[in-house]
Structure formats: C-alpha cells, structure tokens
C-alpha cells in the first residue's frame, strides 16, 4: 500500500506586496498509513503551510505532494482526508448531528445511512446526548470533538489537524489528546498534526517533525520510542522516557542551526 502522504522536494513561495516570501524550501516527508506525525516549530516555520499543501488548500511552487498515491488535488476531490482546524468551525445554525452530517449530505449519501453513520460518530467522540444541541450550547472542548467527528465522517484514512486543541484549557487538552489517540487507533487513520506544544507532540506522535523558519524547512525528524500510540495513556506523561523525548525534541528545536530562539513554542 502506498504512503498516506508523500511530499517530495516541495518549495512554497508566496507573492506579497513587499515581494516574495519563501514559506517552505526543499521539504520532503513521508507519512506511513496509520502513522501519527506531528509538525512542530516556531511561528513562521511553515508547518501550517505544509498541512495546507497536503490538504490542497494551497499548491506547491515546486515539487509534488501525493496522498495515497494520487495528487493532493485528486485526493481532495475524492475526500481521502478529513480536516480539523484550531477553531471548530461548526455551522452555528446546524445541530451537532447536522454538522457531522454535512459532509455526508454533500456527497449524496441516503438519509437513513447518514443518520446511522452520524450516530456512530457521536458515540465515537463521546457526545451521546448532545446530538440535537446547537454549537453555541457546547463548551469549546465539545465543539472540537464535534469537529473531529465531522472530519472522520467519510471514514478517511488520513486526518489533517491544524492545532485543533490550541484554544483549549490544559485539562481539556490532555483529555482530548488521549481521546484522539484512541480514535486514531480505532479508525486506523494516519494523522498529520500541527502543534506549538512539545509535550503534545511527544505524547501523540510516532514521529515529531521539527521545522525551522526563514526559510521554512524540516530541521530534523525525531522518532518517539514510546510504544504504539494506541496504547498510550495519561501515566506516560509522568514517565522518564516521556521527558527524554521532550528533551530530544527541544534540543532539535534549539539546535536547528537558527540563532533565533524558537519563539512561539510552548515548553510546558
């Protein structure tokens, strides 16, 4: 089976009013099926841009991005991935169930099938009794869970997540991290996860991709030797190996050959 994501020799240059800005240069990255990969780095390192290239929300200036062996563009048309952003981005006039149903309705799935699938997804993200609530009646953490359920609606084998827990409090964030690992293991989906937080990246990932800015590039890829992601639980956060991995990622961030301190990275 082909890789979930194959990025080869990608450059991304944005034309701005002041001239050209190089967002990414010579980026190469493979993500295996079912693998959990985090992208971490200071602001301006192009981690979100890389995610947007994989999602075909931007196109690369040079190089190729493949998703499951097809172009990123084709993969978007075929909806081979699900996506979640920092804001949940729910439609305020739709209930929880109707929000999750939206991608299914748009693809013309029969109504009864939609209902069955939505019930499954609501159960999967643990929102059992909240199907007929509206987004403004939910907490931020619950909204984000709805967004994850929506991203999973079409059973994609790739999840793209751009700081989905960035706006949540620490308790909710840790809880949802464990939930996400469970969901990823249950669905067998590969995940590309953008984050600012070193512990979050370490806790979630098989591999942490450390990026550095000006121009945005991959500085180092740090494998996490912490066992399979599906078996991790909160006690890992207090384990010695966890701190070793945090140190390894931190050193990769600092030793990236860039004089500037990695601004925007949380060390907590």
């Amino acid at each position, binding site marked *: 089976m082909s890789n979930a994501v194959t990025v080869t020799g990608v450059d991304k240059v944005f034309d701005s009013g002041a001239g050209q800005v190089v967002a990414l240069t010579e980026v190469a990255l493979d993500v295996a099926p079912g693998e959990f990969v985090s992208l971490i780095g200071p602001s301006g390192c192009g981690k979100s841009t890389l995610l947007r290239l994989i*999602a*075909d*929300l931007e196109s690369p200036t040079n190089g190729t991005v493949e998703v499951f062996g097809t172009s990123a563009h084709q993969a*978007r*048309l075929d*909806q081979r*991935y699900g*996506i979640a*952003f920092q*804001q*949940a*981005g*729910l*439609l*305020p*006039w739709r209930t929880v169930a109707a929000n999750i149903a*939206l*991608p299914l*309705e*748009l*693809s013309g799935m029969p109504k009864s099938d939609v209902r069955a699938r939505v019930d499954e997804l609501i159960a999967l993200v643990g929102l059992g009794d909240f199907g007929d609530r*509206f*987004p*403004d*009646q*939910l*907490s*931020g953490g619950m*909204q984000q869970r709805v967004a994850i359920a929506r991203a999973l609606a079409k059973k994609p084998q790739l999840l793209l997540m751009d700081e989905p827990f960035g706006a949540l409090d620490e308790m909710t964030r840790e809880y949802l991290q464990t939930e996400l690992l469970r969901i990823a293991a249950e669905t067998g989906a590969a995940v590309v996860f953008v984050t600012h937080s070193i512990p979050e990246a370490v806790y979630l990932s098989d591999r942490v991709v450390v990026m550095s800015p000006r121009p945005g590039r991959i500085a180092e890829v740090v494998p996490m030797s912490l066992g399979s992601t599906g078996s991790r639980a909160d006690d890992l956060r207090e384990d010695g190996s966890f701190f070793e991995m945090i140190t390894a990622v931190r050193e990769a961030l600092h030793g990236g050959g860039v004089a500037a301190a990695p601004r925007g990275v949380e060390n907590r």
Partner: protein
Amino acid sequence: MTDAATLLAPPRRRHAGQGARLRAACYGLLGILTLAAVWELYKGLGPVDGLVVGDIRVLPRTSDLAMPHVWDMIARLFEPVTRAEGARVLWLEIVLAAGLTLGIAAAGWVVGVIVGMAFALIMQRWILAESALLPWIVLSQTVPLIAFAPLVKSWGSRIEIGAFEWQDWMSVAVIASYLAFFPVAVGALKGLQSPDRLHLELLHTYSAGWWPTMLHLRLPAAVPYLLPALRLAAANAVVGAVVAEVSTGLQGGIGRLVIQYAGQASGDPAKAWAPIFGAIALGLIAAGSVALLGLLVKDYRRTEGAA
C-alpha cells in the same frame, strides 16, 4: 445612505424574553403619548401666529387650522367621510384605502426582494459584476421618484400582451419595488460574503461547488443580514407605493387620500391627519409582518460562540 450604514453593521443576537418584549411595547406606547403631550403643550403655549424671524417662520402656527387638537383628530376618525347621505365612517375609508396600498406595496416588496436577491447572487458570483453593478445600484436610489413615476406609468400603458393588459396599480408596484430592492441587494450581498475563510475552506475540502456552498453556507449565513434588509424593504415599499400613487394619480389608495384630504384641510383640518395616521400604521404593519418572518428562521440567527 443611512439605510446602507445600518445594514453594514454586523448583526447581533438579542435575547428578547417575554418581559423585555412587554417593556418594549410600553416604551412604544409611552413615546406616542409623549408626542401627543408635546403637541398639545406647544399648541397651548406657543404663539398663535407662530414665530417669524425676518421672512422665515421658525415656529409653526398653533391655530386649530394648522394644529388640530389630538382628540379632534381622533374623534374625526369616527365621523362620516362627508356630510353626504350614506357616507362611510372615516376610519373605514382609511382602512380600505390602506388595504389597497398594502396590497400594492406587498406586490412591490415581493418583486423587490426577488430582484434584490438576484442582484446579490450575481454580484457574489462574479467579482466583476460587483464592481460593475454596485455603484449603479447605489446611484439608482438617487433618482427622484416624482420624476420617474410618470415615466413608468407611460411605459407600462404601452404594454399589452395577449389577454394581459398593464394596470395602473402595476406601475405603482413597480415603483415600490424600485425602492424595495435596494436594501435587499446590499444586505444580501453583505450576508452572502459574510462566511469566514475557515467555513469556505471546509466546504472546499468537501469539494462542494458554488451552488452547494451557496445553499449550505452562504444563504444560511446571510439570514441575519437579510432580516433587517427585508424589514427596510417593506418600509421602503410602503413609502414607494404611497408616493407613486400620488405621482401617477392612482385612485383609491392612501397616497391619494393624503392629497385629497389635504385639499379639504381649510374646512376640515382634523380630516387631513387621518390618512397620515393610516400611512404610519401601514408602515408598521408591513415592517411587523417581516419581523414575524424572522421568528420562522430563528435558528439561523445563532452565533458560533461557546456557551
């Protein structure tokens, strides 16, 4: 351009409970009573011949001819229209005329809403259309209605297709729609453009085209912008209908009565105010009916914020 300015403000969600609504009604009533009290106070205390500075009258006359007592105006409503045998009571005459005008205004409103929505859709779809059309749409509202109304009437009178013959009331409805389409076009365009990038990109990742995006995202997001626009359109349609009745000389509507009774004001000053009250009530009814429409779509006025 105050109409447009109100439309451009982002809609806010209001929590109107039962108590708040009752209080609003009380304040409304209080406002009317205050107005009546101020009227009577000035009438009682002001100089009978008004105040003239140089050649300019800065304060109006307070004579019964210029300012009838409030109670005279009300009492006049319950007297017959004329002294002729079998004449209708005045309020009934006003209600019948107002009904006719309301019907014409409603037809104008419907046409205006359809045209306004069509303009908004076209302008949203093609950015070029927005820069090409929007200035003309704004400019269209500066054309003086009085000059424009007789033209519409004379164009209309030449239309005759088979059994269909252009009626005079249709000219009035067209002019009402001419005022009504403007807030709808501007408000709907603003609303259709209101979804943020996040939602648009999300629909993009579902490979949804223009129409599904319109149906599932842009139109629902436009509802909070559309409701005030529709209300404004209703008020505009009434104003347009009244003015158009006057300038095309259509019989039987409230606009005609305003002119006709004003001509009789020297003999019957209180009577001239009756159709004015009728026109005000008409505007309130028109705007109120649209507010009821808002209740049907209340879920579309929700915001995304967490509880």
